[in-house]
């Protein structure tokens, strides 16, 4: 007996449906899965300078200018620009056809509002806006900046590669108070954020922005054409690093943004995986509290330099030798355009506990308790704190390592008393010049925790940003660094390279210090 066709069709459909339910929905979109460095919890890259938020910014926003692989600033959203002979009047024209991810056109007024918000928040933005007399939209695609005083690195600031990046947003969003988080996520970048699929603490989803207009030039660093070659990117946050490593090596994830340093040998040995580290790397910071005795005395801060052997710190943090820079005494990074050895000579001999002890005595230290804020994680900061504690003890200092989680540390260090030293680090792009290096500020209450206060240092920083000539700027950099070694806003505990790991099924991955997802193809 033959079954009726309709009945057979129904059975076949039911079987297929059951199979689909059992096996799962077919997924045809090419998706990159990345284990991000942390949980994306704040969506506003202007309000929050965290690197995970910055990375989110690079997914959905675009910039007026961007840095190429050689560190040269190139136009991005800008088509053309002009500067007057006295370098005080700047005019910019946006590229034709730029659109926000909701399909509306990008206007010059949007860019002006975005720059104003960034200028109210960012370290270098504040410097630039202090020099700006007027900034206004001329028409829909042109805007102008008029400086009231000379400012050298205008384009460098507009193309600043790291936190806070001057990302462009629609005017209505950019009108938000810079200390308040934006409520919409509309950008003109290569991807669009899928808010409906966002699970904070677990998953962030981006899809290709259909309205994005890439530049014609090939990708080059953060500049050039941001051509998206996949349909979807998922950031899958995995808090347990062992699980993250196993999932990555098992092929469940394509990119492991920042594997802990002690995983580097395992990943290097895996033939399915490639590692790529930002060539500029990161700089470790030991920050003394300039308001708390004995570190209110520069001699005590200079003593800290004699406690530091950079190799010791980086080894404690787990970095293999290939991922550590040899001792680097440049405040503005070794390998950067502002690398200098000025003022470093007295400390070139490395750790000298006797000298440290002597300087501490000269600073009036009489055995009072020194509190080192010691976090349980992140690993680099935790290891650095332990090394400092050991070295202080060896130098005869009465030291107390106060253990705490990172959030508590942030709250503790925001208070002006009750602590003497904490450790952190920053990516090279946020360190490499006096205009972007937040911890080089010595403007007292306005400086980040530690509050260095030195008018000469501030004058030199102001002179640096006012100078347009590169060779003259180099001279100022040397003077500035000499002064920094006298004042010691912080002690550099080493330059190191934290690689990003990705599977060999990916090609076109850009090694720019930010996990950008354009230009990548997945086999």
């Amino acid at each position, binding site marked *: 007996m033959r079954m009726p066709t309709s009945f057979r069709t129904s059975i076949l459909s039911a079987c297929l449906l059951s199979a689909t339910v059992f096996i799962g929905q077919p997924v045809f979109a090419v998706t990159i899965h990345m284990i991000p460095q942390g949980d994306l919890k704040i969506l506003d890259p202007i309000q929050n300078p*965290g690197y995970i938020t910055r990375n989110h910014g690079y997914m959905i926003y675009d910039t007026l200018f961007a840095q190429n692989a050689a560190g040269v600033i190139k136009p991005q959203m800008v088509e053309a620009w002009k500067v007057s002979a006295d370098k005080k009047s700047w005019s910019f024209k946006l590229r034709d056809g730029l659109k926000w991810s909701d399909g509306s056109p990008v206007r010059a007024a949007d860019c002006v509002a975005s720059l104003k918000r960034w200028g109210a928040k960012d370290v270098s933005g504040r410097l630039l806006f202090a020099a700006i007399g007027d900034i206004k939209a001329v028409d829909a695609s042109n805007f102008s900046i008029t400086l009231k005083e000379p400012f050298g690195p205008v384009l460098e600031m507009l193309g600043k590669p790291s936190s806070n990046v001057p990302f462009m947003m629609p005017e209505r969003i950019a009108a938000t108070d810079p*200390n308040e988080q934006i409520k919409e996520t509309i950008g003109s970048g290569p991807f669009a954020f899928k808010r409906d699929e966002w699970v904070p603490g677990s998953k962030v989803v981006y899809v290709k922005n259909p309205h994005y207009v890439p530049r014609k030039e090939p990708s080059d660093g953060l500049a050039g054409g941001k051509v998206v070659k996949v349909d979807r990117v998922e950031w899958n*946050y995995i808090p347990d690093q062992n699980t993250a490593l*196993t999932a990555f090596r098992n092929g469940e994830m394509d990119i492991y943004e920042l594997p802990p340093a002690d995983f580097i040998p395992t990943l290097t040995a895996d033939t399915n995986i490639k590692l790529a580290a930002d060539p500029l790397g990161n700089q470790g910071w030991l920050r003394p509290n300039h308001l708390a005795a004995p570190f209110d005395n520069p001699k005590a801060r200079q003593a800290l330099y004699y406690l530091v052997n950079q190799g010791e710190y980086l080894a404690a943090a787990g970095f293999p030798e290939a991922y550590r820079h040899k001792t680097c005494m440049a405040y503005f990074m070794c390998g950067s355009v502002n690398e200098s050895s000025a003022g470093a000579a007295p400390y070139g001999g490395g750790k000298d506990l006797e000298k440290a002890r002597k300087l501490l005595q000269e600073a009036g230290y009489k055995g009072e308790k020194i509190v080192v804020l010691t976090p349980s994680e992140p690993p680099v900061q935790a290891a650095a704190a332990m090394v400092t504690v050991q070295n202080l003890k060896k130098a005869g200092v009465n030291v107390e390592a106060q253990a705490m989680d990172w*959030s508590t540390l942030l709250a503790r260090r925001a208070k002006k008393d009750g602590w003497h030293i904490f450790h952190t680090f920053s990516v090279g792009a946020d360190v490499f010049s006096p205009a972007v290096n937040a911890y080089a500020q010595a403007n007292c209450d306005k400086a980040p925790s530690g509050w260095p206060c030195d008018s000469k240092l501030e004058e030199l920083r102001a002179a640096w940003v006012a100078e347009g000539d590169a060779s003259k700027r180099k001279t100022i950099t040397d003077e500035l660094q000499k002064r920094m070694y006298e004042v010691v806003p912080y002690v550099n505990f080493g330059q190191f390279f934290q690689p990003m790991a990705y599977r060999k099924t990916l090609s076109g991955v850009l090694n720019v210090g930010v996990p950008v997802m354009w230009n990548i193809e997945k086999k």
Partner: protein
Amino acid sequence: MNYLLKRILAVIPVLAVVAVIVFLLLHLAPGDPAVIIGGDTASAEDIERIRQTLGLNRPLPEQFFHWVGQVVQGNLGTSVFTGMPVAEMIMQRVEPTLWISALTMLFAVTFAVPMGILAAWKAGTWFDRAISGLAVASFSLPVFVIGYALVYGFSTHLGWFPVQGFKSLSDGFGPFIRHLALPVISGGLIYMALLARMTRSTMLEVLGEDYIRTARAKGLSTPRLLLRHALKNAAVPIVTTIGLGIAMLLSGVIVTESVFAIPGIGRLTVDSILRRDYPVIQGIVLVTATAYVVINLVTDLLYGLFDPRIRY
């Protein structure tokens, strides 16, 4: 019905006390979300402005009554970091936690009750000793050790299951169960051990009763004797243990969620505590406290089903 109404009304003062204690503990503990939002480069002035926009600079009683006012209107507030409604964040995380808890308990009960019954029936034999040994081993091994071992064996080595993540049932039964299998086994072993021990000891007690001897003398089959007569009378402590187990699971599932990167309530709680996301922590505690009270109530009501002498 009167009893039920009284129990439900009794929830209100419990939740009020929980709310006050949690609010005070959180706000008096060190930590400040404004400094986390401000980041490494924020000045004291920046941080103060952020505190102002979040309302964190207002006096504590004012903040408390503002929050209570919202809760009374059914609004748990908004996360200070994500800007998402707390209720939405909790809802996103409920499904994985409920599935893990339910399947873990199902796994534990399915294996533990027969194991406990048989161990009691065969008390003193090698089988009983084997079950006791397994129970002790399951108790002694931490969940994360079992989890990593299972991942090594079944994910890395055999490739049968994914290492991490969660798939909803709507993504298909296959992916759903493949993602949950290892978390459920690693989390369930300890409850299986607990329940097996409890079942064995209560069954042993019941099996020594006169009516069991009588039933056996009447020629009742062993399965009927064990399941109909002995187990039913041993059920009250077992049900209590299951109830306690479910309540413990809701808070204890955090380890399983962390090892297998499952976005459940446990991980949301820890993440929120670490970053001092006050509204989210307060919301979770309120919801969890309510869940505990409901589980206790349901457990109490179930006693009546197994033992008709218990009436409220």
